[in-house]
């Protein structure tokens, strides 16, 4: 059984030190985190690392990763992320992203599809819904957003570990920094790129779209819009699950991802 614990390191990208967790073995899988930043090596990382080499970078400006001063917009973040993958020394990767990480993965796929083997978008931002709205997590504040994110926190195996205690001052500082960073990149237009749906049809990549049926942040409608825009995609909806399938339903989530990625071998 390969090791599933990560190695922590920093790599330099565009002059910035970028924090990276890397673990497992097999084909490379790069995971872009959501607005709350890199929550560490979670159970879904461990499970996926049994079959893949998982790279979990902390995006610039979040957590321990530096943000180059010129990096201000989501478009900047997209181009930076291409460089980041290049610095990982990888020719071709599978890419998985959740919420803004999913949006980022979709943007990267649009700009450089030849770099990607398979694409996994999880409750991803990036497309403006036609009916509903993407909930304004900034306006709801941290506590209000927390109430919207999970369908049933009791079913989350890692809930206590992640949220069962008051954050230390250092952790609180990083939370504020992450919120500030998310605001910097995603303030306006809020959580979507108007041109993205028009560009996604060029992404001829096997694509898995995963959505929690009860997502109250990004409506399921957006999952359907992604499915319609990406030619070789399919949408898998997880029942009794909110916005965060990797944490709320890690077993079901990793099973879906593993099966999809192993279809590539």
């Amino acid at each position: 059984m390969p090791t599933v614990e990560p190695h922590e390191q920093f790599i330099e990208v565009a002059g910035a030190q970028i924090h990276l967790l890397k673990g497992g073995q097999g084909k490379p899988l790069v995971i872009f985190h959501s607005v709350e930043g890199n929550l560490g090596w979670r159970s879904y990382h461990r499970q996926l690392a049994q079959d893949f080499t998982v790279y979990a970078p902390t995006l610039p400006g979040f957590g321990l990763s530096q943000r180059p001063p010129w990096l201000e917009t989501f478009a900047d973040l997209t181009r930076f992320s291409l460089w980041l993958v290049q610095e990982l020394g990888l020719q071709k990767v599978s890419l998985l992203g959740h919420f803004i990480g999913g949006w980022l993965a979709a943007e990267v796929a649009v700009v450089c599809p030849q770099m990607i083997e398979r694409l996994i978008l999880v409750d991803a931002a990036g497309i403006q819904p036609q009916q509903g709205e993407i909930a304004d997590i900034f306006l709801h504040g941290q506590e209000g957003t927390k109430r919207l994110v999970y369908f049933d926190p009791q079913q989350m195996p890692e809930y206590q570990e992640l949220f069962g205690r008051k954050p230390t001052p250092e952790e609180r500082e990083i939370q504020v920094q992450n919120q500030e960073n998310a605001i910097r990149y995603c303030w306006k237009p809020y959580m979507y790129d108007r041109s993205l749906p028009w560009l996604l049809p060029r992404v001829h990549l096997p694509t898995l779209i995963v959505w929690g049926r009860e997502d109250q942040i990004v409506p399921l409608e957006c999952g359907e819009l992604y499915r319609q825009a990406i030619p070789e995609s399919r949408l898998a909806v997880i029942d009794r699950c909110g916005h965060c399938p990797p944490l709320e339903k890690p077993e079901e989530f990793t099973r879906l991802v593993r099966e999809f990625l192993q279809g590539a071998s």
Partner: protein
Amino acid sequence: MFLMRFTERAYVAYSEEDVKNSFRSAVRLTFSNSHFNPDLGADLYHEYLDEYEYSDEIGFDGLMLNEHHNTPTCMGAAMNLEAAILARTTKQAKIILLGNPLPIFDNPVRLAEELAEIDMISRGRLVSGFVRGTGIESWATNTNPAHNRERFAEAHDLIIKTWTTPGPFRWEGKHYQFRVVNPFERPLQKPHPPVWIPGVGSPETIVWCAHHHYPYIYLETDPQVTLDLMAIYAKAAREVGYEPGPQNFGYLVRIHVQDTDEKAYKVGEGFLVGNAGVGRVPLPGDFMTPPGYNSREATKKLLEQYRHALRPDPLYGGVDAAGWEKVVESNRVIVGSPDTVIKKVRQVLSALRPGILGVWTNDGTISHKDTMRCLQLMEKEVLPALKEMGKEFNLPGPFEQAP
């Protein structure tokens, strides 16, 4: 000493329940404008303008206005409009805008034009203050809070250049780009209308202000804390080679006068629902300061530098959260008969030595009738005494001595 009169122009025809039922129980930003009655609003605008015009007649040196958005606590959502009216209808007093929230303007050149018009219509009576705005202003105008300070600084530089450099010129900044900056109407005052900066003590702003020789107006900060903040200004001023005096400092304080102490104490309590709104329901912290609004690294650095010199506000939560008795006891709101008020203001002036005194005469539920009586009493007894006090304590204002 320069005496200016202020009110936030509150709207109070709603209930605490209304506030509690709004999104995140906030009196600002998300408090529904369905609670606003334009008929009443029309009356209030006229009353507030009448009060300012009367303040001009009775000898205030300045009429101070401010601007906030999405809130019943301040009806000055388009402060420059009120300023333009007063520019035409008043005769003597300076029109003190404290201030235009620069980061929320996508077109600072247009703002430079508006202010130039006000300066000309008032025949050179404009004082153009600039602010970053509270976080609410960023939310309400969808201005990225992470760019607040950068936009403030760049918009300021662009406006000053627009006023002082013959056009046309081109501006290619980080947040603003203009092909042809050349507004035809330029301000009457040379090199440009005076700039004053109000605030509640962000060290970063105070240092910036001192470096620009701009007077800083402390907005009803605790007197001891104000002294600490003045020391930050003074240190920064010395760094660039000058010694600041009273002309570099202003202090805004709520002062309400009635015929008797008892009546003033009773009426003055209406101040408490001014800034805080009816019911004084605490605002969500991230509405006032969203993440990114304060540049954390710069703030941390400055706070570390001045931590030894900065005391916390002894009124926990400030005036808006404290009880009326405590607020009055600590001179954070001064109420009383003319004699009482004169004595209390004397204590404040001798301790803080500002060259500018902002007299916040009324707010919240204080009625127009009570406000007019307050102003009448100020004319007869308080203003002459304060002017004498300014001379006695040698407190030159910025028009007597250049900051």
